[in-house]
């Protein structure tokens, strides 16, 4: 029997003291498969102390006779430093994977070995590497059909042979989105006592003609939708959920924060109701939920759990998405142009216990959540990258989603190391990790001091193509080629001073892997350009991105303290070479051309061209590119990426520019922003909008005065209360009970106010929007509900918004452009941006210019009075500006007569 299936999961069971590997997959026709492979055993390597080999063999056989299958002398290269000869090691083969740690630790304790290798590789990956298998790749299982009730798959077979092969298309996966609503009176729900009221499910493809199904753990008094099922109690509802799960048999379970909440809670409630937790395709192993610090790692056999929240967060961290808030409603609004239904978290309990109509509304609310979670992942193709990463790295899809970069790199390394006769070290132990000299800090990449300001001449942006991987390859950098002492073979000395054996003597394993990844990426890109099939194109794009991610992961891995191959000298060599290359590039450009390098960061530089034409700038850029590549020949290649028509550089890693890239012979414009605060959560929309518009004017129109006038206009509008209140709303979430908050915070104070006013108020988990109104109290006490402000015509504290929301980001921008030397030296009154926006004598905010005596100091924002100016130079409550106070009035300056 031969079955082709895409690999979803791999694990093992032990039967009669023998491990049986299980491979779970799905065929093109949609049939689920489980292949059982027998006859594969776990093993690791021991490097005995010299003349000690027999003693080691004897010790192991004597102490672990029941679990040792075999001890075989082998020859292997040690993993670190160049060696011309292999070392004599022992391959220790066991019958039970779970016993490997015990044997390993005992050998260590008895100090019998100079080294122990690959004794902490997970058995499933040991198997997959030795069999040449990769996660989510297609495999051909050759064997004979078998019957068992231990797994829930359509087909089972006893596997004799496994082969993996390439196929671009993926199987048609079955997605199930799950969202639960728990019923708790107040505060965070407690799985020990608070029931799940509703489980809402969304299916793709449909389940028995249904897109949705909502399960409710109580009987309703009024008729519900046809896809809503009600039950007597929670237990009955959960039992139905398990039935649906088994019948629909999804490959992927999706939720928004499913890992952090829904899944662990579901498992706990199944336990409380004494129902089985075997949610995967195995009838024996239950689903697992483990807490690591503040995070959960959840898994089940042969089904992958996908958390939409984690994917969105990752996208934001990588700079692929810009979103202020990560709530399902906010993300749906931004990415799907759709909304959650409006029931505040704190009102779920009242809706649950309310009349039929309220319950109906709650059911709709739950259904919408499941729907949004599913669409978020599918419509934005958030999983594409992970499918391909799983294939490229070799790790299973679930581990690809949950695990870190290190794991992805290590499986690739294990394959290649073993192929070339090398062993991999174990991961550093906690002792070794904590004793690692952290003062041995890795000096990072070079960031050149930028020429800050608004550059209105074109600036070409050049970057090194795959700089770090190129450095690995150019200098043959690898733990296996690393030379610490003198050797009798040809070596290369890097600009950092470290030595590696030349590739003519031995090609390093890391450079070998990197070359393969880079070449494959080039092929995939070329294929993608040729193909017209949109689906294939999408997969190829995802593949090339996965290859890029893997290629760039190697440098970080070598500098990661917990990596098997953590060698600080190698990581330092990479960054050292990078710094050398950037400095050298700058030197080359500035010595050989009339142009100036205005900025450089890690693997890119920006060169200012004194020319106004994009085409000419691009041509010059090509010349610069050629010049640099000649000087650095054989190491890295530089390429012109784009031309900035205008760029505003604020500081290191902070700039905004109007970038032009040639696509199909046409210039495509794009606004590029790095490190500029356009999406800070504690800003109101007016602040974000104003900054964005100012940058827009500066970059597109290069008109400083207009940008300044625009900013002033907004500030004047604010002073006159002409900015819509909705644009002034600041939102913060209530993350714990009010009594747990230390100190006074505006959103907490507002919730207390609302509670007093209305009886009910937002609760834990809700986001609270507030505005700051005028008054004499502390700032935090002047937070108010925007609707209440509108209804009661309460004046906004425009000074607060000006000083604390609008001005700070603008000041940073105008500081680099608006204050010329002449202005600074000759017009002292305009040294502060605040002064630019105020009338000197009688500003409309009530601050006067001068006084000859005073009775104290006062905060210009919150009006707190001080006998003496605070030593920190600003208000200790709200960080506002401190002015002189006299008879309740505020003054900027004190004028004294000098006798």
């Amino acid at each position, binding site marked *: 029997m031969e079955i082709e299936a895409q690999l979803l999961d791999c694990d093992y069971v032990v039967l009669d003291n023998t491990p049986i590997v299980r491979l779970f997959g799905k065929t093109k026709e949609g049939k689920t498969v489980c292949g059982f492979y027998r006859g594969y055993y776990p093993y690791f390597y021991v490097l005995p102390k010299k003349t000690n080999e027999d003693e080691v063999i004897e010790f192991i056989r004597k102490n672990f006779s029941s679990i040792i299958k075999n001890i075989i002398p082998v020859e292997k290269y040690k993993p670190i430093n160049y060696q011309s000869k292999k070392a004599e090691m022992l391959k220790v083969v066991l019958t039970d994977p779970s016993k490997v740690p015990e044997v390993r630790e005992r050998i260590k304790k008895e100090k019998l070995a100079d080294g122990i290798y690959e004794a902490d590789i997970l058995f499933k990956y040991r198997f997959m590497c030795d069999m040449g298998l990769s996660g989510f790749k297609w495999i051909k299982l050759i064997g004979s059909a078998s019957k068992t009730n231990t797994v829930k798959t359509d087909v089972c077979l006893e596997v004799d042979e496994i082969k993996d092969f390439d196929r671009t298309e993926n199987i048609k996966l079955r997605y199930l989105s799950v969202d639960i609503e728990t019923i708790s009176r107040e505060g965070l729900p407690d799985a020990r006592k608070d029931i799940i009221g509703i489980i809402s499910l969304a299916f793709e493809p449909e389940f028995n003609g249904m897109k949705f199904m909502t399960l409710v753990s109580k009987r309703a008094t009024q008729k519900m939708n046809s896809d809503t099922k009600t039950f007597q109690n929670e237990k009955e509802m959960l039992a139905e959920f398990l039935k649906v799960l088994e019948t629909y048999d999804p490959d992927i379970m999706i939720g928004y924060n499913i890992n952090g909440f829904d899944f662990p809670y579901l498992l706990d409630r199944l336990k409380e109701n004494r129902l089985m937790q075997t949610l995967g395709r195995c009838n024996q192993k239950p689903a697992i939920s483990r807490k690591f610090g503040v995070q959960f790692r959840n898994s089940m056999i042969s089904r992958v759990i996908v958390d939409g929240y984690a994917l969105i967060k990752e996208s934001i961290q990588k700079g692929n998405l810009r979103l202020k808030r990560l709530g399902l409603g906010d993300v749906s609004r931004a990415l799907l142009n759709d909304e959650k239904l409006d029931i505040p978290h704190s009102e779920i309990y009242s809706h649950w216990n309310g009349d039929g109509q309220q319950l109906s509304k709650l059911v709709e609310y739950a259904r919408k959540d499941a729907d949004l979670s599913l669409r978020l992942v599918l419509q934005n193709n958030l999983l594409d990258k992970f499918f391909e990463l799983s294939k490229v790295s070799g790790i299973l899809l679930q581990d690809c989603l949950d695990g870190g970069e290190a794991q992805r790199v290590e499986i690739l390394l294990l394959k290649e190391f073993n192929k070339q006769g090398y062993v991999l070290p174990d991961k550093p132990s906690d002792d070794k990790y904590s004793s690692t000299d952290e003062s041995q800090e890795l000096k990072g990449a070079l960031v050149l001091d930028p020429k800050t300001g608004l550059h209105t001449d074109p600036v070409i942006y050049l970057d090194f193509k795959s700089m770090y991987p190129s450095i690995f390859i150019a200098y043959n950098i690898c733990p296996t080629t690393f030379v610490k002492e003198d050797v009798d073979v040809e070596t290369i000395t890097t600009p950092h001073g470290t030595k590696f054996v030349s590739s003519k003597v031995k090609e390093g394993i890391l450079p070998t892997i990197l070359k393969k990844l880079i070449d494959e990426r080039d092929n995939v890109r070329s294929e993608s350009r040729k193909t017209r099939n949109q689906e294939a194109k999408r997969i190829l794009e995802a593949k090339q991105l996965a290859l890029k991610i893997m290629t760039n992961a190697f440098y970080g891995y070598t500098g990661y303290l917990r990596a098997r191959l953590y060698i600080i000298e190698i990581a330092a060599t990479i960054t050292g070479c990078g710094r050398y290359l950037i400095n050298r590039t700058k030197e080359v450009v500035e010595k050989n051309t009339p142009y100036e390098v205005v900025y450089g960061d890690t693997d890119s530089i920006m060169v200012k061209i004194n020319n106004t034409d994009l085409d000419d700038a691009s041509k010059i850029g090509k010349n610069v590119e050629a010049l640099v590549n000649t000087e650095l020949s054989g190491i890295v290649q530089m390429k012109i990426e784009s031309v900035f028509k205008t760029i505003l550089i604020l500081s290191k890693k902070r700039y905004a520019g109007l970038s032009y890239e040639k696509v199909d012979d046409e210039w495509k414009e794009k606004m590029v922003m790095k490190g500029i605060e356009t999406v800070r959560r504690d800003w109101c929309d007016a602040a974000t909008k104003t900054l964005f518009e100012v940058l827009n004017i500066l970059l597109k129109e290069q008109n400083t005065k207009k940008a300044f006038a625009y900013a002033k206009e907004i500030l004047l509008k604010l002073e006159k209360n002409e900015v819509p209140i909705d644009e002034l709303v600041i939102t913060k979430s209530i993350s714990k009970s009010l009594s747990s908050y230390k100190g006074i915070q505006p959103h907490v104070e507002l919730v207390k106010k609302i509670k007093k006013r209305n009886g009910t108020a937002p609760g834990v988990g809700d986001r609270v929007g507030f505005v700051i109104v005028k008054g004499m109290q502390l700032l935090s006490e002047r937070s108010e509900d925007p609707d209440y402000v509108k209804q009661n015509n309460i004046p906004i504290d425009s000074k607060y918004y000006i000083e604390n929301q609008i001005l700070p980001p603008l000041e940073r921008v105008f500081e680099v452009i608006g204050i010329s*030397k002449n202005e*600074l*030296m*000759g017009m*002292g*009154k305009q*040294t*502060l941006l605040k002064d630019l926006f105020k009338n000197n004598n009688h500003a409309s905010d009530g601050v006067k210019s*001068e006084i000859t005596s005073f009775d104290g*100091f006062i905060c210009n924002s919150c009006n707190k009075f001080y*006998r*003496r*100016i*605070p*030593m*920190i*130079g600003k208000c*200790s409550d709200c960080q506002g*500006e*401190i*002015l*002189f106070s006299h008879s309740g009035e505020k003054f*900027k*300056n*004190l*004028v*004294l*007569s*000098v*006798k």
Partner: protein
Amino acid sequence: MYTNLMDKSKIVKFFMERGAHVDKTVLDIIYNNDELFERLKSLDRKDLPHFITADFIAKLQERAMPLSEKELKLSSKDYLQYYIKRYDAIKQILINKPDLSNLVSVNKMSARMQKFSLIGIVTSVDYDTLTIEDTTGTARLSIDNGLSRTLTEDEVIGVVCEKTGNTHKAVKLIFPDTPVKKDVAKTKNDHLCFFISDIHMDSEKFNLEFYQKFLNWVNEQIPMTIFVLGNVSQEPSDIEKFIKDVSKHSIIFIGHDNLPEGTKGHRDPLVYETEGIKIFASEGNFLTPYINRWSMQHDEAVINLLKKRHLNPTDILNEDSFFLKTLPDILAFGNIGKPSATNYKGTTIIFSGNFTSEPVYRMINLGTRETFKIDFS
């Protein structure tokens, strides 16, 4: 570029040696403007702020073409610089005190800390609470009244703190204090200084007999320096007469604003130096609030202030006069309480009498540092 860096580092060093730091932006400005640099160099150390900012430079430019020659314009930030200067100066003295172990700044305080020390400027002192600040924040400490009794706002102290329950308590206060003067400063030759005050020639209670005795005595003395520590008379004509009466001596008027034309007066207080001897002379009115607050005798109050190294902590604008960077050899005050002469660690403290009831005054020979009590009753 290398040359530029060297020159700029020289500028930075120049100001650092004078207790000032140059803002990065300002460094470029100064580097490119010789005139500005010269102007800054010409300022006294006391006129340099802790941080030379663009704001300061702009104001300096304004002051070069000032509002009027006799006016000084300060922003609150300028005002703060005065306090920071004081804080820094006294901190340098306190930082070497062995009692201040485990010294932290306010922002580094944590609830877990069992014992630590702070250096701060006193913001407020209540019955059982002490609030002090440094440039990183404000700390509120509990304190026994006995310990806080001799404190005043705006002095800079060191505080040894211990955790009690959930709060921290100030268990010991460390003052900068004054070192004992090992060598008593003297002039090469005899130099008589006489300290007189509160003549009150225009008062009904003015005792002419006392005054006559004074005149008889003073005119028998060899020429000396007479320090007039306020309150001769409201009438300029009386002051003219006084000047005539003691014309053989040199007179230094302190704190008089009604002197006859051509007569030089000095602001109160005056720091007078001659041959290495420093005399702090004042009417002494500024001492009254301290005397009342602490319920101390006037000379005890002055000693308490000497321990703080600052004679008038709540006055920031006359910092140069009141902050005792180097200690005076003699402190002389007008009539605050009973006339007296005391010594604290080698510093002579004199209080004058008055010509209405208690005409007792002191004369000091700077050549021998002998103090003579002269009673004109």
